């Protein structure tokens, strides 16, 4: 009995022995839940690309904040605001397809961030911290902040669930049901921005998008209700955090990247495993003749 349990030691001993790893697991679990809530709506509404833009748009903000000795979160929040304004301006005014314009916007912001950080030698380490996070240096203050961010994201989801779901089906439907699409679209972007700004210190601005999209997309493949999709997303996010940290510990590889990579390969695995079911689902449709024109 004891020997068989001892065999499983590598699965929990790293966490019981090292406080930094326990904190990392707690922090990434909170991030996973935050991202599951925000990511569900991002995936439903097809906003992945805008999420991407937001995640990169915060980089120059953080860099400028660090330059002036202000907390990075403040800069990230300002960067997110500028980016949200930029995205709305671009999608409403510029006569380019919005993914071209947003793509240029976020590469521009990313390079601006790198330019600012390269200005000073003391910044050399900072750009990697911004991009990939500091999961193994999570303090209890960081964890407290995560709880606040989780509360804000959850509150937005509770208030705006109905318009968010209507908008994922059709903007006109939300509009004619009496919900302001402009307001709730901005609220959704705000929710994504809060999730990104609140998570970047742990998993980094590059990697947070993986946790935002991959578990939610996995949930979408496996479920047929929004609530179960969100729960499944949270489950896969937390599982990825645990497996990623374990991999990171035993093979001495980067923690944040291991977590995000795990969440993406779990998505690929589920996508492959559910192919037969989805193909069957489409073959069973006997209503092709209903398309009369």
């Amino acid at each position: 009995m004891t020997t068989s349990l001892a065999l499983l030691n590598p699965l929990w001993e790293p966490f019981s022995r090292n406080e930094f790893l326990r904190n990392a697991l707690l922090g990434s679990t909170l991030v996973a839940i935050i991202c599951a809530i925000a990511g569900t709506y991002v995936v439903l509404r097809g906003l992945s690309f805008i999420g991407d833009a937001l995640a990169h748009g915060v980089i120059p903000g953080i860099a400028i904040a660090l330059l002036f000795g202000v907390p990075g979160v403040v800069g990230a929040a300002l960067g997110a605001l500028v980016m949200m304004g930029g995205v709305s301006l671009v999608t409403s005014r510029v006569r380019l397809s919005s993914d071209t314009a947003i793509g240029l916007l976020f590469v521009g912001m990313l390079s601006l961030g790198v330019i600012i950080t390269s200005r000073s030698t003391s910044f050399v380490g900072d750009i990697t911290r911004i991009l990939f996070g500091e999961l193994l240096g999570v303090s209890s203050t960081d964890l407290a902040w995560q709880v606040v961010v989780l509360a804000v994201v959850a509150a937005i989801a509770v208030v705006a669930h109905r318009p968010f779901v209507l908008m994922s089906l059709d903007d006109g439907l939300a509009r004619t049901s009496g919900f302001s699409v402009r307001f709730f679209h901005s609220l959704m972007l705000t929710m994504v921005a809060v999730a990104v700004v609140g998570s970047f210190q742990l998993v980094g601005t590059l990697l947070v998008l993986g946790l935002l999209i991959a578990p939610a997309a996995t949930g979408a493949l496996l479920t047929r209700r929004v609530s179960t999709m969100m729960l499944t997303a949270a489950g896969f996010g937390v599982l990825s955090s645990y497996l990623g940290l374990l991999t990171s510990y035993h093979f001495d590889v980067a923690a944040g990247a291991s977590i995000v990579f795990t969440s993406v390969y779990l998505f690929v695995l589920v996508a492959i495993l559910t192919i037969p079911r989805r193909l069957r689902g489409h073959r069973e449709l006997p209503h092709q003749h209903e398309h009369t024109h």
Partner: protein
Amino acid sequence: MVIENYPISTSTPTDMSPSAPTISATHLDVGHGVHSVVRDISLQVHAGELVVLIGTNGSGKSTLLKTMAGMLPPLHGEIAVLERRPGSAPRRVAYLPQHPVSSHTLPLRARDIVAMGRYAHLGLFRRATGTDRSIVREAMKRTGAVEFENQPLRELSGGQQQRTHLAQVLARQAEVLLLDEPTAGLDLSGKRAVADVIASERARGVTVVLATHDLHDAESATAVMLLAQRVVAYGPPAQALSDANVRECFGFTQPH
């Protein structure tokens, strides 16, 4: 059936005179931004009437419908729905968009889609009651969507999706229905189901405006408006659907 036949007057203000039109437009220009698609539309629709907008793609019928739904501002002239600005009475006006998007990733069952029809009444927070659930169920029965209520939208055929969206519109229990090509993608039994639904809604005093390019949809209409980026004809079907008008609208004569 009690739910289906609830009297329309319960949600109609008592001071509204019975002869006031539910939809009225005078010299209305509709379009997107500054570009008008159709100019100088005047029409009056009363409770229980069915007005069918007929035209090809790009003729302006969807644009007019969206203006009635309050999704596009009128560019010129006057329009009132239920004696108010379009879009200001979401509980009393239901709109069925053309080919509603059906993303493959949406994890929503048919019954969840229909239940969204109650959101206009429930707002952000109010919980759905037993009455809401029976309204939803009744709506699904009437369009036949009840047969596949537990299937996710992504596994439904185009016709089944259309029945689902139509049930959602019914679940709103509105006084005005604005339907953009409700019979698109439907087989004969589906088209008959739509016609039955429209007839029973009209019988309880509901005003219906329907956009289509199928002349058969106009058979039971009170009035028909033929559109081709302008009003080609407007009047009772027998009068408006003359061969000359139809040829001008479609470029050829449709058999009917």
